[in-house]
């Protein structure tokens, strides 16, 4: 229990620190951080899957589901409260996750990845044809309210959203930390390590992966809803494979040891992207590609492993899925 208390305490501190940071940092960084956290939540879902040895290349499905759930709620039912919209996003992710999980829980490695990818591309195709949802151009959303507080479109609107996003992010992160540190969390680790033993100990690897998948789906929905609010716009690209690919990269970049690393990674990626596109408008994609390669090459364990190296008395020794030979074919 001590661990949980410490994590919760840390969460409170983090909230305070972020609230403070929101004042200190320039507005553009507030906006970047807001979006980074939203995307980070989706990546956190992939991290939860990675701990069980799976990587989804189709989290765009849930990201998109969350975003459109929030968007439709806002446009069709005039729901404007951020908390409510994010809750709807989470529910959308949850429902979709529960439907899909049983279909995919039996697969591993590249098969799992391609299946999830295929799924997201179908969602993408369908949304492009759904003119009532704006088709390929998508929909615009207006600024949300926060528990009854309606900030005018202005600096404090973006600060309010940042605060709200940070709150949701920290809560989600803390819950994930607690889950990862729990016996069940450890079991995911074990399942990635040796499925046979897990089965012979009387546990079901299918269930472990299924639950992780649903967790990832919910986080994806939440992240999608938050992104929709911070962008003020949603379109089918939310489900496009490059979007999902970005989340996978975030997860790899952060590694699965530290939850915090996910969000650091998210901010880092946003900054690298925007600065490279500012300084090399003609070759920013190439620059991004090089950055990707270097990270994967020199940080196989992700930023999280870096943090562990800095702090010797770490939790369990980190091994990137990269170095993990298990779980090829189902």
């Amino acid at each position, binding site marked *: 229990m001590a661990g949980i208390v410490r*994590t919760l305490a*840390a*969460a409170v501190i*983090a909230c*305070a*620190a*972020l609230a*403070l*940071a929101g004042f*200190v*940092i*320039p*507005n*553009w*960084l507030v*906006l*970047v*951080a807001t*979006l980074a956290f939203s995307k980070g939540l989706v990546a956190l879902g992939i991290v939860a899957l990675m701990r069980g040895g799976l990587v989804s290349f189709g989290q765009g499905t849930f990201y998109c589901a969350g975003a459109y759930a929030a968007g439709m709620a806002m446009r069709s039912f005039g729901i404007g409260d951020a908390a409510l919209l994010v809750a709807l996003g989470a529910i959308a992710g949850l429902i979709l996750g529960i439907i899909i999980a049983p279909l995919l829980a039996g697969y591993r490695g590249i098969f799992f990845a391609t299946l999830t990818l295929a799924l997201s591309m179908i969602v993408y195709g369908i949304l*492009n*044809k759904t003119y009532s949802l*704006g*088709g*390929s*151009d*998508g929909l*615009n*959303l*207006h600024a949300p309210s926060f528990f009854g507080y309606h900030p005018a*479109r*202005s600096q404090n*609107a*973006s600060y309010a959203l940042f605060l709200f996003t940070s709150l949701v992010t*920290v809560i989600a*992160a*803390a819950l994930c*930390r607690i889950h990862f540190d729990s016996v069940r969390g450890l079991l995911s680790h074990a399942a990635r390590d040796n499925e046979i033993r897990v089965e012979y100990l009387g546990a079901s690897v299918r269930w472990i992966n299924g639950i992780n998948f649903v967790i990832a789906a919910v986080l994806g929905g939440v992240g999608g809803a938050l*992104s929709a609010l911070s*962008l*003020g*716009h949603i*379109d089918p*690209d*939310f489900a496009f494979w*490059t*979007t999902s690919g970005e989340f996978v990269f975030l997860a790899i970049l952060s590694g699965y040891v530290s*939850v*915090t690393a996910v*969000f*650091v990674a998210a*901010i880092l990626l946003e*900054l690298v*992207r*925007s600065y490279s*596109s*500012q300084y090399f*408008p*003609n070759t*920013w*994609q190439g620059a991004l590609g090089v950055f990707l390669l270097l990270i994967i090459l020199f940080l196989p364990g992700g930023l999280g492993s870096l943090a562990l190296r800095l702090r010797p008395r770490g939790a369990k020794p980190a091994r990137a899925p990269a170095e993990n030979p298990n779980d090829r074919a189902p």
Partner: protein
Amino acid sequence: MKFRRFAAALVAGAGVLGSFTTSATAQDDNVFKLAFVAFLSGQAAESFGKPAVQAATAVIDALNAGSLPKPYDKVGFGGLKIEVHLIDEAGGATKQVEELRNAFERDHVDAVLGYVSSGDCLAVSPAAEELKKLLVLFDCGTPRIFEENQFKYVFRTAAHGAMDNVAMARYLVKRGIKVADVGAINQDYAWGQDSWKDFKGSLAQLEPEAKTKVELWPKFGAGQYGTEISALLQENPALVYSSLWGGDLQAFVLQAAPRGLMKDRVVVLSASDHVLPPLGNKMPDGVIIGARGANGQFAEKSPINDWYVAALATAYPGLIPVQPHYRAAQGLLGLKTAVEKAMAANGGKKPNSEEMAAAMVGIEWDAPPGHIKLALGDGHQAIQSNAAGRTKWDPDAKMVRLVDIEHFAAECVNPPPGIKSADWIAQGFPGAKCD
């Protein structure tokens, strides 16, 4: 403790970045920082991005040199030298919103001019509005921007897509081209869907006897149209309509012409002038072409147009100007007009977004394609005249000329204020003034 580390890291990082951006914020009052957004990579780079950047560079250099004819002879924008920040439009709407915010909030540009993709236009407009910064859209087509939203800081200096297809239909009438049936091939995304809807609607009003025989919806960027062409050949409609553009259109023509799809048949390409230079004699004669405005060869003689054609010719020898060149220049001159109007109002100071936005409402100006007027969307959405013509290969000049050209007044092909273009078409163009 992870979270504490995180908070620390965040604050520290923020500090660093904050400091180095505030150092960069040194506002310079005699330059006008303009972010120019266009496709520098991806499928639209060749057909729209590159020409738009060429045009912007040429015009802005000339503006900074003060070498334009009256009334544009002031250096830069009302004496403020223009400093351009180039942004790549490729990468999806989410990235565009981020880059727009960074441009305004981090690089402190005074205005953003750009966007070819309708999706991007829809996505960035609310962001600019939220930041209360001036955003000028110069190319994208969708009417939804000002028909579904009200923006104070967002303007579009070119007419929206409805006019392209109304003009195409009117051209058929004016030239007495009667067809029994129509086949359509359009990309399956908003541009293709809207274009076809508008053309179909306009035709239903003007030539109700023309029946739609087949609608084909290739994927954007498909590049291979063998099957679509077979389907069209099989249905054998008297008229083939397409809003394809760029590489897709070039591929379509390359594959359709040899199979005789474009022979003894009316072919209407609603937004296709920009593929004539690359295609050259591979574009069959007699194809009905639109340029999304009286752009390129459709542009009529005027001081500004004569200057522009000459300027481009010197900057890029051998270049044949097409719609993106014209739309970019049109946007720049519109913005210039607004900025200088604002400066006239505030006593010559560098205007802020408020002043520029206020000044820009409802302005009119003369651009290479003709007289432009922000008549729609409460003075935020431009209307302009349009034109159509037929292709004719000129072996001596080694270029495709446009012949049998018809011009249409702005009020003839654009809806009047207060009515959505779709409804305007459906109701038979109420209040259209066609001289």
